[in-house]
């Protein structure tokens, strides 16, 4: 595995450069916004990457909490499978779907959730799932910061405002705040069971996100706000560039996560070894 790292690094570097070129030069210039619009190719992929990482953190947190209890573990397994099946059925049964959502994406999302859950379950022990939780939270916060910085940077020249309480931006802000508090809890905890406390917080955060979405949605129906980023269809050439950038960002996130993960595992192994040494060596009476 270790030898793959430099290869992967090189691949990511190439991909990022290519994506940069595409975003800044090759992509068509937007009609109304001009060249400023190109920040979109950094803003959106960062957001998707951040959400994916936070979702991985959520899965790892749940796994850490349930895997100590065989009954809870089984129940969660079946719940995840049920969610995937429900998503597949709902995708083709619910008519009409909310605007902009395709049946295939609903079904795929459900299957991906289940796939991600069981992949992590298979390849990560309970302790390592916790290490992955730390890593994904940290890297997720970085990408989330990028979203929150590029958002206003984009909004100001184009729409004349630094900030607006639109659903996506506000939800991103709340998610960022929740995960900063998560990292602070990890740092400040003196308990021997920090992973449990942090996992509980992550679960609370995950429960909170749909409520945030819903609350902002109500707010906006009562107080119409300007929309940053706009909805609607996107030029296929732009979509192409967007996806290339997302792939590049994912590879970069994977690279960073991988090295951070290795660091975290090494650190934990070091602590375990030191603890074992302290256990075995004779102690002078105090």
């Amino acid at each position: 595995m270790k030898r793959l790292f430099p290869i992967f690094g090189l691949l990511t570097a190439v991909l990022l450069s290519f994506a940069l070129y595409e975003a800044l030069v090759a992509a068509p210039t937007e009609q109304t916004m001009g060249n400023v619009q190109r920040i979109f190719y950094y803003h959106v992929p960062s957001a998707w990457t951040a959400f994916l990482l936070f979702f991985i953190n959520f899965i790892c947190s749940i796994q850490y909490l349930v895997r100590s209890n065989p009954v809870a573990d089984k129940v969660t397994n079946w719940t995840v499978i049920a969610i995937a099946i429900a998503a597949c059925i709902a995708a083709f049964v619910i008519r009409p779907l909310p605007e902009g959502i395709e049946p295939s994406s609903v079904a795929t999302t459900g299957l991906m959730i289940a796939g991600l859950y069981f992949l992590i379950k298979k390849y990560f022990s309970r302790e390592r799932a916790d290490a992955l939780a730390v890593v994904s939270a940290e890297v997720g916060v970085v990408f989330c910061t990028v979203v929150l910085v590029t958002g206003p940077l984009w909004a100001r020249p184009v729409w004349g405002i630094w900030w607006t309480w639109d659903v996506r931006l506000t939800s991103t802000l709340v998610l960022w705040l929740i995960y900063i508090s998560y990292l602070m809890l990890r740092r400040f905890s003196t308990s021997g069971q920090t992973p449990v406390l942090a996992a509980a917080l992550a679960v609370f955060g995950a429960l909170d996100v749909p409520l945030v979405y819903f609350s902002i949605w109500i707010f906006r129906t009562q107080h119409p706000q300007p929309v940053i980023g706009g909805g609607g269809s996107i030029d296929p050439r732009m979509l192409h560039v967007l996806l290339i950038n997302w792939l590049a960002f994912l590879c970069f996130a994977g690279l960073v996560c991988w090295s951070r993960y290795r660091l975290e595992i090494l650190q934990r192994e070091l602590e375990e070894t030191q603890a074992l040494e302290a256990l075995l060596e004779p102690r002078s009476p105090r």
Partner: protein
Amino acid sequence: MVSSTYVDAAPIITLTAVVKQFGRFAALRGVSAEFAAGRLYVILGDNGAGKTTLLRALAGLAHPTSGSISILGTTDVRSVCHELGYMAHPSLLYDEMTGMENLCYFARLYGVADVSRGADNMIAVGLDPRLTRPVSQYSQGMRQRLSLARAVLNDPKILLLDEPFSNVDVRSARAMVALLAQMRDTGKTIFVVTHQAALLEGAADEFVWMEAGQITHRSRELQPVGAQ
């Protein structure tokens, strides 16, 4: 494993290679022991030997890093917690309530609705149940005795007492020892961690010495420190 000095029937508590680590500090380093029912055990050792940690592990307050503890036939300490009584060095009492109020509250936690139990316990440890002073105004000795009264509210089979005699005057301490011996005679298993082992010389069944997180030896006699 350091064996008991008695040839015992089935043990009531079994520790198997119990390790408890706080980060790099190993409070218990592989303790294995068996304890039979109906005996009064005195646990001795220097500060930092692991005595308090051992008691907390038995009470279910500290989960072993590795190894297992079997109490009354089960490794799930939570399921037998109503058979345990625990007394620690801090008083585990509410300072702003009176003695009886404290005992009535803790009795509720154990599902004991009988108020007279609390009163009886207070009398047994030499306190007046009609005291209206809040616990904060008790002397240290009185607080220790009330804490003992709280520990036996649920009439537990196993009593875990951490430094019950600290700051208690000699007469009250002797009365407490007599009470403990009485309870042992009714079939309770009692563990006492103390630095004042001499008080228990007549009453104790076995002395257990701990050092650096392990049990070093057990004896029926209290011997001078260092003698084997």
